[in-house]
């Protein structure tokens, strides 16, 4: 690089003033990134730790108290415990997979219906009617000594209903 100094002579390289200008600017950019990193670390590190819930088993009741092809609502645990015709249990989240409204069970038509955009789901949570594109999320079910328990700390997402998502009494 060729430049002119104060006396009008041609000199090679960059001047001391320009050099320090560049140094200050890069330090400024570096500091901005550091600040940004610090702020985002501050913002996000606390959040994830607080929301990871401990394992929380909710006792739903004895196996025999749930009839075949019925649905029982557990509003406190935010799930519907569904028992299919073959005796398999599944605990369905009551959140519609479209936009998160809470679904309700229509006994006469044996289906879940969402009030927001009329998505419908069958007793296993499979989509019957769009706009919802995924089957309902579900919580793991455990059956211990004839008592049905639901682990409401883990919400499982899925695209469609599969047989192995059902839990059977021994």
């Amino acid at each position, binding site marked *: 690089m060729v430049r002119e100094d104060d006396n009008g002579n041609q000199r090679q390289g960059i001047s001391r003033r320009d050099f320090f200008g560049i140094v200050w600017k890069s330090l400024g950019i570096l500091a901005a990134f550091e600040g940004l990193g610090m702020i985002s670390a501050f913002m996000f590190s606390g959040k994830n730790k607080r929301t990871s819930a401990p394992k929380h088993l909710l006792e739903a009741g004895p196996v025999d108290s749930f009839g075949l092809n019925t649905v029982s609502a557990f509003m406190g645990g935010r799930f519907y415990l569904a028992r299919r015709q073959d005796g398999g249990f599944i605990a369905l989240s009551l959140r519609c997979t479209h936009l*998160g*409204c809470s679904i309700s069970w229509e006994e006469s038509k044996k289906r879940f219906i969402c009030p*927001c955009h*009329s998505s419908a789901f069958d007793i296993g949570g499979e989509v019957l009617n769009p706009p919802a594109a995924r089957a309902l999320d579900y919580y793991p079910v455990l059956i211990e000594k004839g008592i049905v328990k639901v682990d409401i700390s883990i919400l499982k997402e899925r695209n469609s209903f599969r047989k192995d998502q059902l839990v059977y009494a021994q």
Partner: protein
Amino acid sequence: MRSIFLHLHPSKVSEQSLIFHRTFGLGGMAALLIANQVITGILLRFYYVPSPAGAYDSVIFLKNQVVFGQFVRNIHYWSGVFLLLIAFLHFLRVFFTGAYRDVRKVNWLFGLLLLAIIVLSNFTGYLLPWDQLAYWAITVSTNIIGYFPVFGNSLRTMIVGGKELNADTLQTFFNFHSALLPFLILTIALYHFWRVRKAGGILLPSDGEKQEMLPVMPHLVFRELVAGLVLIAFVFTIAALFNAPLLEKANPAYSMNPTKAPWYFAGVQELLMHFHPLFSAFIIPLGVLAFLAWIPFTRYEEAPSGHWFISEKGKRTARSTAIFAVLLTLAGILSGAWLPGFEILMPGIPALISNGIIPLCILCLVMAAFYIFYLKGLSLAKAELVQAIFVFIIAAFIVLTLTGIFFRGKDMALTWPWYV
């Protein structure tokens, strides 16, 4: 006090810039409403409790026990509504008088940014009462974010702080609403005003004759005072007559029917009923924003600026494009209600294609036909063509929003406003 206020103004303004219908005083009105929001917002903070357990009860307490509590809440609510409306009208005024070119390019972007932050302020404030209306509107809106490609779900989790709305969400929204966003609005608005002054005040017709310069005091200041007093009187009257909505306390187990997003997102929600979420929640809004930001940064041929709708031809084109956009949007909404959707006609094809790409292609074809058979024949100047596209977007947006607010009832089915 008086000299601070005068310092914000130039010492002299041209007689032309005092004509009311040149700007309708919209920018100034927005500034006044912002000040109003700061004052009433600080007052509300003395009683509001930002936690799911306490929020709703604190609003009820404010309503029933605090003198002027309901009134202050109403003023804050209605000023928020009017601020958004007036900022939107200001945005239209600036566009249609061509005040976004040359030295005003960058200020157009800051104006867009301010509009976005005002929307965000409204949105974060919407959750705070923690009633059924707030809870489900924010649930639906934040779930829309989940449909953004790649980063959607993590962005949603970041904003909500979990799978569903919780104490963290409320605290985050409260902090944005009452600290970060007001700070941003005030600083950016000051910069926005400064740039208007630096550009030589409001835009005047470049081909107009030179006009006499008048002292700001009293000519401009008194006009502002009158406009400001009328606006305040109007907001207070509305606040005295109509209460801000408040339903039962939020119940995560029972959603409202219908559940609607906040009114300014009703257009996006309406779009969501006709297109796959990837298009309606992401690609189309992003495309519109990119277009708006691009507007001042393209070259326009020399034309006298500062005239409403550019020219007589521009005005006629804008009118016919608006009519076309309204009819097309209405046709789309009605066919969505009465005809079976593509995802039902074509069950084997993924929803992304049947419910996304196909309707979008149909829309593009109709728009292309409108361009080829109508606009092209008018041999418009570039600015007039850009104006036509802008008019199309705005008209469609307004129809979608009004439909979402006033014509969607139970199960989000089409109905008349008196059944909503």
